[in-house]
């Protein structure tokens, strides 16, 4: 590909005074069809001093959509804590970044691709990964990891063990939905009702997992963790959230602000096509209807090979110091990328759509401006460096083209060759979208139907445990994460399934060895692979500790549906607890708020309460918000999703060789229940399997005390004192015990008195759920040390080939092989 020599670079255009763009104004009705309200349209007319022409209307409708303007959530988000000692880059840039020591920063962000994935799961999920990766390398950071949070409708057709089936196959007597909603059909085993929905959920799961794997595996960024939940309200509106981390020296972080009048705007990467026109921006701002198939052409198609070249090219351009600023093209394509850059730099732009390389003929100027074709980047370059920039892009086959110039007009002016087709004040596009108050009101009736009953009440504890282990929200995630490359880039010290949070060495393995330094390193480093449990320091070369980060992502929606404030706090605490198990101290947090239509009072209430909880939990755990994303209008044909604030947390690990695995590690170790833990059956996974309705409200607990317990566990893990450490989540204490038995391939014998409130028979003590509890194993001395800082109850010993539990009237004796068979239940979904 050839390019214009420097003397033909785009220059600011001289226009006669009073020149206005060509073409007719499409008018109010078309504006409404594009999603603007009548009053918003009036405001656009007022800002322009005339009615918008086609390009302008298309651009305003996107920039003023919920997706780009956050017009219903911006006021709430302003209440979140965003400052802390480790914060290098807070909200506002493509991603946030935290200081991880020695001048290195980790950039990270989570983002949703829900509606595209509900329409076409493979491409929707794949481009979700591609999009979040671009946010990371747009900062100049090399992407080093991906995580994902997935939510689908129910996939379980029946119970794994028919003997556990309820004798009465009616739904629990709990709650109907809010009137007409019936997200989950009345269950009865052997009945086909609901099977089509479950089949669709399995299809969405399979497609999303394949799509995430396809993109991440191909581009060479490890997928190091995630979570997945299956709940009825996600059946017609699944959630696909992807988080990415990147690594960059602090001084090499690049911003996105366009500056320097006369500087040139260069587009590089894939050519522009019609894919995604009206895609995410429109899709993301309207509830999904029955005609989803009609929206298929608007879903973007991802190309990880193109993106892999784009990463290398972008990082090389920055390494050579050739760029003024860099920005990725995501939702709303060129429109959003260019106007955000101009807004941050408080400049104007002249842009010629005729110069934009196309992959199809006949695109209209407005289509070029709003196309969401994937794998494109925009940069601002001083005129003297344009040739060099284009040469680097040619080297990587992501040919760059100068398409515009920075001006002092404060206006975004669009040309199509010589034709003048658009002229908008940048602040009007970016800042002047009206922000709306939302009107929260706690619903008087339950919003969600009770889940289908899968097991009888009062099953013997062993049978109930097996049913839990085989249920989709608890079963082993290995069949999913085995489809992802978790080790490429050689940073992954703890892979999925080994520890509650993933652990990466940062900056990386290169600092660990004298690369090219002869055979002393190789030959002198024959230490055996660490046993799954021992986690003894692996002998860092040179004796110095290898530092790194721990990363986790969490966000159960069901608990937030029960109590948006308490449930959200719980999600943040769970993330912090996961980090504690690998000795990671929170540095910052990113969040994706997945909610329904905020214009409805009960959704507004969920959103408001959740953000309040998020803020309180951030302050308690010391993890300020570095950025995130809001995904509203997640409502399918059967009602809103569970309110789902997904939280991704990054923490500092001073020595990555010292972490505590999930699995029990040594026969004879003591097993202890640790932390400020007050479990309740009301919202538990066992209650869900029994068809229990979602409770109205959850008991609050002492947030500071729980956070202090988590910190105590973290510090003890850091001392290398614990053999294993696993936080108690879905399925309660007995499930956590079983998971530690399974991961360590070592049994345990446990006996304890009921300790939960109002728990005469021990059921709530074993199966109840709450934040802040851990199952820990280690020596008596190690547990005594931990007991100085938080509650520690020794409940048993490690050993044997099964799990044996006594608590009040509850007894369970289950062979390891039976636990393993039940836990492998998800495998059949991918057979």
């Amino acid at each position, binding site marked *: 590909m050839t390019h214009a020599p420097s003397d033909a670079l785009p220059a600011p255009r001289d226009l006669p005074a009073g020149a206005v763009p060509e073409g007719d104004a499409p008018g109010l009705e078309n504006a409404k069809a594009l999603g603007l309200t009548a009053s918003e349209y009036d405001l656009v007319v007022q800002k322009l001093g005339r009615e918008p022409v086609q390009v302008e209307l298309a651009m305003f409708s996107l920039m003023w959509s919920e997706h780009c303007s956050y017009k219903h959530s911006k006021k709430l988000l302003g209440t979140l804590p965003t400052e802390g000692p480790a914060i290098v880059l807070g909200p506002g840039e493509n991603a946030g970044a935290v200081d991880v020591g020695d001048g290195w920063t980790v950039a990270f962000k989570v983002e949703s691709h829900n509606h595209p994935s509900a329409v076409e799961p493979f491409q929707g999920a794949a481009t979700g990964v591609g999009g979040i990766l671009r946010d990371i390398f747009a900062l100049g950071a090399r992407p080093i990891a991906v995580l994902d949070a997935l939510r689908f409708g129910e996939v379980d057709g029946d119970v794994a063990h028919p003997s556990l089936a309820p004798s009465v196959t009616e739904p629990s007597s709990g709650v109907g939905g809010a009137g007409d909603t019936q997200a989950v059909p009345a269950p009865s085993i052997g009945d086909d009702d609901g099977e089509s929905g479950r089949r669709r959920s399995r299809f969405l799961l399979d497609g999303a997992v394949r799509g995430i*794997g396809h993109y991440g595996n191909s581009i060479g960024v490890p997928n190091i963790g995630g979570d997945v939940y299956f709940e009825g309200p996600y059946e017609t509106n699944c959630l696909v959230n992807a988080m990415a981390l990147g690594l960059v020296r602090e001084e090499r972080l690049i911003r996105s602000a366009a500056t320097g009048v006369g500087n040139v705007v260069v587009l590089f990467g894939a050519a522009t096509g019609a894919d995604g026109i009206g895609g995410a921006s429109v899709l993301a701002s309207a509830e999904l209807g029955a005609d989803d198939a009609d929206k298929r052409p608007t879903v973007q198609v991802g190309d*990880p090979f193109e993106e892999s070249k784009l990463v290398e090219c972008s990082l090389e351009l920055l390494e050579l110091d050739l760029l003024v600023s860099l920005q990725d093209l995501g939702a709303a394509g060129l429109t959003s990328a260019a106007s955000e850059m101009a807004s941050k730099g408080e400049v104007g732009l002249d842009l010629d759509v005729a110069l934009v390389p196309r992959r199809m003929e006949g695109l209209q100027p407005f289509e070029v401006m709003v196309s969401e074709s994937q794998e494109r980047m925009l940069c601002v370059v001083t005129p003297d460096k344009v040739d060099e920039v284009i040469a680097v892009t040619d080297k990587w086959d992501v040919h760059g083209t100068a398409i515009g110039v920075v001006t002092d007009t404060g206006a975004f002016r669009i040309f199509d060759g010589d034709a003048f087709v658009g002229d908008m004040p940048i602040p009007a596009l970016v800042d002047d979208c009206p922000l709306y108050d939302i009107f929260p009101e706690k619903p008087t009736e339950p919003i969600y139907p009770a889940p289908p009953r899968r097991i009888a009440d009062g099953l013997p504890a062993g049978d109930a445990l097996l049913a839990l282990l085989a249920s989709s929200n608890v079963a082993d995630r290995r069949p999913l994460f085995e489809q*992802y490359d978790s080790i490429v880039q*050689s940073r992954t010290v703890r892979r999925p399934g080994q520890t509650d949070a993933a652990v990466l060495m940062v900056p990386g393995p290169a600092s660990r060895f004298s*690369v090219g330094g002869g*055979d002393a390193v*190789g030959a002198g480093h024959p230490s055996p692979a*660490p046993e799954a449990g021992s986690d003894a320091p692996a002998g860092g070369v040179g004796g110095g500790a290898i530092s790194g980060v721990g990363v986790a992502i969490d966000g159960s929606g069901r608990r937030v549906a029960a109590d948006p404030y308490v449930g959200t706090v719980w999600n943040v605490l769970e993330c912090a607890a996961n980090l504690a198990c690998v000795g990671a101290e929170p540095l910052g947090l990113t969040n994706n708020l997945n909610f329904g239509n905020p214009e409805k009072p009960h959704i507004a209430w969920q959103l408001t309460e959740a953000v309040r909880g998020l803020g309180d939990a951030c302050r308690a755990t010391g993890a300020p918000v570095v950025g995130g994303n809001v995904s509203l209008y997640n409502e399918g044909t059967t009602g809103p999703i569970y309110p789902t604030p997904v939280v991704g947390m990054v923490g500092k690990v001073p020595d990555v060789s010292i972490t505590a695995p999930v699995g029990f590690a040594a026969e004879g170790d003591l097993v202890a229940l640790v932390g400020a833990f007050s479990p309740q059956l009301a919202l538990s996974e066992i209650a869900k399997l029994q068809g229990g309705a979602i409770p109205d409200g959850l008991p609050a607990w002492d947030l500071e005390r729980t956070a202090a317990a988590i910190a105590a566990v973290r510090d003890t893990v850091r001392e290398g004192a614990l053999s294993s450490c696993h936080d108690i989540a879905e399925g309660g204490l007995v499930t956590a015990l079983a998971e530690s038995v399974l991961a360590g391939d070592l049994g345990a014998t446990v006996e304890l008195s009921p300790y939960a409130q109002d728990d005469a028979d021990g059921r709530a003590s074993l199966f109840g759920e709450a934040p802040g509890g851990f199952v820990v194993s280690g020596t008596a001395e190690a547990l005594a040390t931990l007991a100085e800082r938080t509650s520690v109850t020794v409940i048993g010993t490690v050993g044997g080939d099964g799990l044996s539990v006594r608590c009040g009237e509850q007894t369970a004796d289950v062979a390891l092989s039976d636990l393993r068979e039940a836990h492998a239940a998800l495998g059949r979904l991918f057979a």
Partner: protein
Amino acid sequence: MPQFPGSCDEVDALLAAGHVGDAELLWHRDRDLKGVDAVVVPGGFSYGDYLRAGAIAGLSPVMDAIADFARDGGPVLGICNGFQVLCAAGLLPGALLQNADRRFVSRQVQLSVETTETDWTAAATEGQLLSIPAKHQSGRWWAPSELHAEIADQDQIVFRYAAGGNFNGSLDDVAGVCNEGRNVVGLMPHPEHAVDALTGSTDGLVLFRSLLQGARA
């Protein structure tokens, strides 16, 4: 070590090779191998692998030079996509098809060293079990029965998946093979991801250390 657009394990391989000597990347458009003593063709998805795994990389300029190097007896190791590339380029026998279940699988596997008579296994012992990660979607080694019999006969099967570990459906549990000259070896699992106890295992180092043995027995 050639770097193709779309390679992704080349830095890992560079790091692994760095345990035993100096290592550098070779750009896919170059023909100059810069006088190296050995070549590792890395894993990844060269050129996107949209046609067929390894198909395009096999035609690249750098592969011409690597083929000459191999024919002259230079040690060449193909890992994962690199194995696919070497098969596509005719430097190694057999072909790599989609896994039996057509899914990408990432898993730690046990490999059995079947012969130490190659440039890349000289430092191992026959029957030694190596714990090494595998991660691929097209790793099912296959050859027509005559070719299979021939390479089995000539001891060209270098690695097999240990009993019960053949997750991709490879013929005869084959995980890696060598050429007649025994200087070119390819395998699907990733020895370069098994060079550090911190990240899981050091069992892969033996391949790189084998180079230091120099002449084979």
